């Protein structure tokens, strides 16, 4: 440590100015910090004689801390459900009965007995397909639109009242317009997904573009980059985390909306299936559908979080 102080002084021996004094102190502080770090690194090694069991119990504790609370939560849910089922006098099926029904249902997910009686797998896939198409269309239009709105102040001023007006409209309010224009149930459902999924993507992309750090834009100005280069080398990478947030919100909304839309339009799909089972008074299946919708939504969300981590430079270590 003293050797380092000597070097610092040797660089500028006669310059005992405030600036160098501060610099020297800073250098010493850095060194001291270094020493602290290394000593704390060695400390555990010295006491590493009998910690094997200790460490094992620590990992065990951590696992318990990680697993126990969610497990308790699930148990609570099932418990409340079981009590409710008990007190409802068998009108609401209990967890066990639902489980048996689910095992039966998922043992043959892909059967087809006519258009109104298809396996749960087909229904889920039909819903996912609608969401996929509607959502892709929304992304194809919403993200570029968000870019333009974020980049051009005039467009921002022009479109923000429209967006503010249309965004709070319940997605299902668009269904009659869809039925009117497309004269068919399936495109109308896709239309509803499209119109409900597009707003988060437009808004998040626009916000992302407008929040690109001024430093990066200064670089663009100093280098005199073309608009295309600004777009591909600065705006797109800088905005990507915002875009992915928009995409995530959108797919959440789309998946929320599809169930309701399909209840109204009929055909194949998880929403229609729920309604069909309600007409059959098969309440177990309705409960199963609720879980299925929840799990698929969760998986979609997790998938997008993974993609976001993969593409976002901020997460890159």
């Amino acid at each position, binding site marked *: 440590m003293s050797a380092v102080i000597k070097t610092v002084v040797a660089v500028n021996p006669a310059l005992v100015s405030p*600036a160098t004094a501060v610099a020297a102190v800073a*250098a010493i502080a850095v060194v001291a910090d270094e020493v602290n770090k290394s000593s704390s690194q060695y400390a555990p090694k010295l006491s590493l004689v009998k910690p094997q069991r200790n460490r094992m119990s620590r990992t065990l504790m951590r696992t318990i801390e990680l697993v126990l609370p969610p497990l308790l939560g699930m148990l609570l849910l099932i418990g409340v459900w079981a009590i409710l089922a008990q007190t409802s006098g068998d009108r609401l099926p209990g967890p066990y009965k639902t489980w048996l029904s689910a095992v039966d249902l998922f043992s043959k997910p892909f059967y087809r007995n006519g258009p109104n009686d298809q396996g749960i797998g087909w229904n889920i896939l039909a819903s996912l397909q609608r969401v996929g198409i509607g959502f892709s269309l929304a992304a194809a239009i919403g993200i570029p639109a968000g870019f333009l709105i974020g980049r051009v102040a005039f467009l921002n001023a022009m479109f923000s009242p429209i967006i503010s007006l249309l965004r709070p409209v319940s997605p299902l309010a668009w269904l009659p317009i869809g039925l009117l224009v497309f004269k068919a149930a399936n495109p109308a459902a896709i239309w509803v997904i499209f119109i409900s999924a597009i707003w988060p993507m437009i808004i998040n992309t626009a916000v992302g573009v407008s929040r690109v750090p001024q430093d990066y834009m200064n*670089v663009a100005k100093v280098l005199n980059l073309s608009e295309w280069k600004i777009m591909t080398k600065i705006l797109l990478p800088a905005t990507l985390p915002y875009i992915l947030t928009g995409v995530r919100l959108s797919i959440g909304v789309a998946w929320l909306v599809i169930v309701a839309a399909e209840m109204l339009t009929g055909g194949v799909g998880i929403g229609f299936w729920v309604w069909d089972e309600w007409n059959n008074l098969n309440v177990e299946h309705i409960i199963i559908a609720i879980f299925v919708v929840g799990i698929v939504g969760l998986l979609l969300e997790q998938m997008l979080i993974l993609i976001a981590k993969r593409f976002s430079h901020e997460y890159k270590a």
Partner: protein
Amino acid sequence: MTNEKFLSVENVGMEFDTKRGRFEALRKIDLTVDRGEFISLIGHSGCGKSTLLNMVAGLLYPTMGAIICDKREIKGAGPDRGVVFQNHSLLPWLTCFDNVYLAVERVFGATETKAQLNERVSNVLELVGLTPAAHKHPDEISGGMKQRVGIARALSMEPKVLLMDEPFGALDALTRARLQDELMVIVKATGSTVLMVTHDVDEAVLLSDRIVMMTNGPSATIGQIVTVELERPRDRLKLVANPKYIDCRRQVLEFLYQKQLRAAA
């Protein structure tokens, strides 16, 4: 130092519109810089030295007066003035090589082949001693290395003027000293005209031909200019006992801490 008035700042003033009316940051700035000259701008924080640098860079437009660079009025940013930003401003999603390539491609892309462009990037990275880190991302290298990439990017455009906004301000003292030495070598090799904002007195005296000292804002202007008549190459170890060096330091310190000492600062 031929070509008088290579860069000239003529009667420049800068006002900002704020919520509490107009704020005059700079007034009546007159400065001429010769080709190949190294100028430091020094002053207390908030004196508008970065504003002046940004105006020369073309990132800000003066509300009064004009800035002329190589016989042309500055009307916007451009690659003829390379800027080294205080916080390096590298694009984190590009490697060091690609960060520099972006600049090189813009300036020379129309006239040179891809191989020549790559060569330019390699050369300038070698100049700042970063060849081994060329394909790392900015978050994988140290602060000093990032600042070198920033310098490499600015130099790669072969700018008429190199503008540096507290280029070493965020670095520790030892790294700063090393980069200052390297900068002197690079500036000598490239013959660059340099305008540098700093608040480090030693840095200013060591590197500059002239030190422009600014009065405190608002309405800051040039208070005094010290000419550093020290032979180059300069050796920081030998300079410390040099009477000219000590005198320059004294003048700058007196200006900053006697004439311009602020009650608040």
